[in-house]
């Protein structure tokens, strides 16, 4: 476990900012204590300093996870957000998409969101903007990338994709083994 390098921090923050914009600073400066990002087994964990101190007792090979896993660095040093980060993305998300109850299940199985399943979408969403996907009952279901701007969404036919799927909470079951 080690702190992120400059590059890694940059890559990760760039990725995060696609979803939560400048709200990143709310993640770092929290009123309830210091939180920090740590790298362990290529994965980035977001953890309180207090817990971190305790975790240092544990040898590297025995430590499985600490705090919340945000995602992992690929071999090509790109950062990939995991669904486990959703708890921190959802409250700060700038752009949101709500899916209709009928399309919920389809999204939870890893499919893109179609226009037909689109319930609501934040105004002024740009194309390829990172969005957090909610159910109509405001339960965060995952996140993805807007395939079209809000304006375009109004016009397209029902079967066209409006949000590209990136991660959904179905992965807690589907890819339990690779979460960490």
């Amino acid at each position: 476990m080690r702190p992120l390098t400059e590059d890694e921090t940059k890559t990760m923050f760039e990725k995060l900012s696609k979803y939560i914009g400048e709200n990143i600073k709310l993640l770092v400066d929290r009123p309830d204590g210091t939180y920090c990002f740590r790298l362990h087994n290529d994965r980035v964990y977001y953890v309180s300093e207090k817990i971190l101190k305790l975790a240092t007792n544990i040898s590297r090979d025995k430590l499985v996870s600490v705090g919340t896993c945000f995602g992992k660095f690929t071999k090509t040093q790109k950062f990939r957000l995991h669904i486990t980060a959703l708890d921190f993305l959802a409250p700060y998300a700038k752009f949101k998409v709500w899916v209709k109850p009928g399309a919920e299940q389809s999204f939870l199985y890893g499919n893109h969101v179609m226009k037909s399943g689109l319930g609501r979408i934040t105004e002024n969403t740009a194309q390829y903007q990172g969005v957090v996907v909610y159910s109509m009952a405001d339960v965060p279901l995952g996140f993805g990338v807007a395939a079209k701007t809000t304006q375009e969404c109004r016009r397209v036919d029902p079967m066209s994709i409006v949000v590209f799927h990136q991660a959904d909470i179905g992965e807690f079951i589907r890819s339990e083994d690779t979460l960490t």
Partner: protein
Amino acid sequence: MGRKLDPTNKVKRGPGRKSRKQKGAETEIAKFLVDEETEPKRLSSRARKRAAKRTQPSVPAKEEAAKKQPQKGFTDENSEWLKPAKRKRPADESDGEEDSDSEWEQEEDEEGVVKGAGLEAEKADEDGEEEGEEEEEAGGDEDSDGDEEMVDDYGATDDSSEGEGDDADGEELLPIERAARKQKKLEAAMEQESDEDEEEEEEEEEGSGSEHADEEDTVQANIDEMDRFKLPDAEDREKEGLLPLDLQSIHQRIKDNVDVLSNFASKREEGKERADYLSLLKKDLSTYYSYNNFLIEKLLDIFPVSELIDFLEANEVHRPVTIRTNTLKTRRRDLAQALINRGVNLDPLGKWSKVGLVIFDSSVPIGATPEYLAGQYMLQGASSLLPVMALSPQEGESVLDMSCAPAGKTTYMAQLMRNTGVIVANDASAERLKSVVGNIHRLGVTNTVICNYDGRQFPKVMGGFDRVLLDAPCSGTGVISKDPAVKTSKDESDIQRSAHLQKELILSAIDSLNAESKTGGYLVYCTCSIMVEENEWVVDYALKKRNVKLVPTGLDFGKEGFTRFKERRFHPSLRLSRRFYPHSHNMDGFFVAKLKKFSNTVPTLPPGEPAEEETVPAETETPAPSKESPKNPGSKGKAKKPLKVKADIAKGKVATNGAVAKKVAKKPEAVLKKIKDGKKKPKVAKEGTETVKEVKAEETNEGSKFEKNMGKKRKTLMKKTNRLGKNKFKKFKKLLKKEVA
């Protein structure tokens, strides 16, 4: 999803049922019309049925009728059957008919009718019976349609034939009336089943053979078979081994056997020992429920006979599915509403839990709803809520969960702590930790460190926890309904092995605790086993080896832990622990004990203490030889307890004189502290003096020789110590003080 599924189902179901019903009514009417015209024909068909049944060997056929009821009786719907109180009824009512006010009118009717209509039949011999009964029926039909079916024994007791019987008899009744009657009959059948035996017995005593015939067929059958319960002798049993097993007769025999055992004085057969009955019962139980002998014997030690049957029956039934609301993400009311909207039928778990919900049935897979994936609830047995409630972790504490997979309890702790403080979730299996990671993230728990140590090494990694939860790996005898393989796969060595592991784990769990913690210092030990070896014994062991005491668990239900079990006597405070059983609490078998650590010092640590259990190998933790050399025998003696002496004896060759001396020199401070506490004063003092002498002796003698003699000496010493006077004690105390100074 559920919304989609529901309508389709309804569409399919609705018309199908309806049409079927209508058809049934039509055919019934048709039958009714036809019947009047061709009554002989109908009778003959029934007679044919009878004949068919008669041709089979009489015993099994009759038993079948008797048998069907018990099996029905133990389904989940009849939860009353799972309770021991009901079970005792037949025994209480041993005098049968007179005192059974609840005897059903129907039954009385039956008898009346039978006696009236079938007098000839009474005297008819076996071959003639058939005809006689036909006559009976004919008479009954004419007399009263309503009561006739009661005469029809098959209708009254046997479900399969019931329908047809009803068709014939209940033509004039509305369907709903018939349904009501059917249910009534079912109840009656259940009742009868218990009463029948007694009736039979009485009649048998009277010795009137003619009485038999006027009973219904089923009753008759039973009379033939087992008037009064007789123990089969050795020859019979041998024969049994050769013949194919008849489970139903075995079940009947179990019931009778239990009946006799619960009223042994009055119902026993002359000249038969209780042991005879018990051995037969054991054999029958293991065949009927397919347990191995070892487990049945173990269970028989734990439960009284009648309760044992309830327990075994409860193990055949699955416990209800329960979920726990994740209060970090939602509230129970909201969750319940959301699930109800998905077509889930649920109810709050009980008064004792504010987060539990019971799922009765569901049109959607309960482990894959969007609510589940969003982490709003966790699928978790009711029993696994209990240890966490007992632990009651507070906000801001540091808590250790020693074997956490699959994190049901860990996440419950986190939600009680509202995601503050630290939880260290440990598990020995890396494979199972994957589900831990998934669940912890899914439920939005952020205060955990997940690690993969062997629990036994944990004190070396980290210590000073405010609370520790040890859900020890166990033989799983409490969750047989979940994993029936336990029935046959466990034997003595398995129990011993897990008990040994548990003892190691509980010590290391205690060592990870911080007794000085302001809010905590608590350990909750729980297992999903009901074996005494894995529960009370382990806790008792911990009480002896560490400075811990039992405290109330805070759970207001459950049975008290054993303080005495067979030849074992445990610390009296063990009644503060709680046991939960499938048959009495409708949750998995479980054991919960809450311990408080009151001192961080480890009282005594000989390298091996086989006093408890000879199979236990030497402790991993060997005490470092203390630096202060023994100044006088008194100081040595203090730390040494009689148990240890025993240990030494057992170890024999291993413990050389020197080694013993070293051990003895260990930690006089710990004992001193105790003395200051004042609580354990006399005890320690006693032990002290006792051991002082021993040590003296030890120094003079040669090692192994001494150890051989020691046993005798110890006994005599014990006596001496019993006479320890006040003066002696004071003297001894002074000595101690001096030494400390």
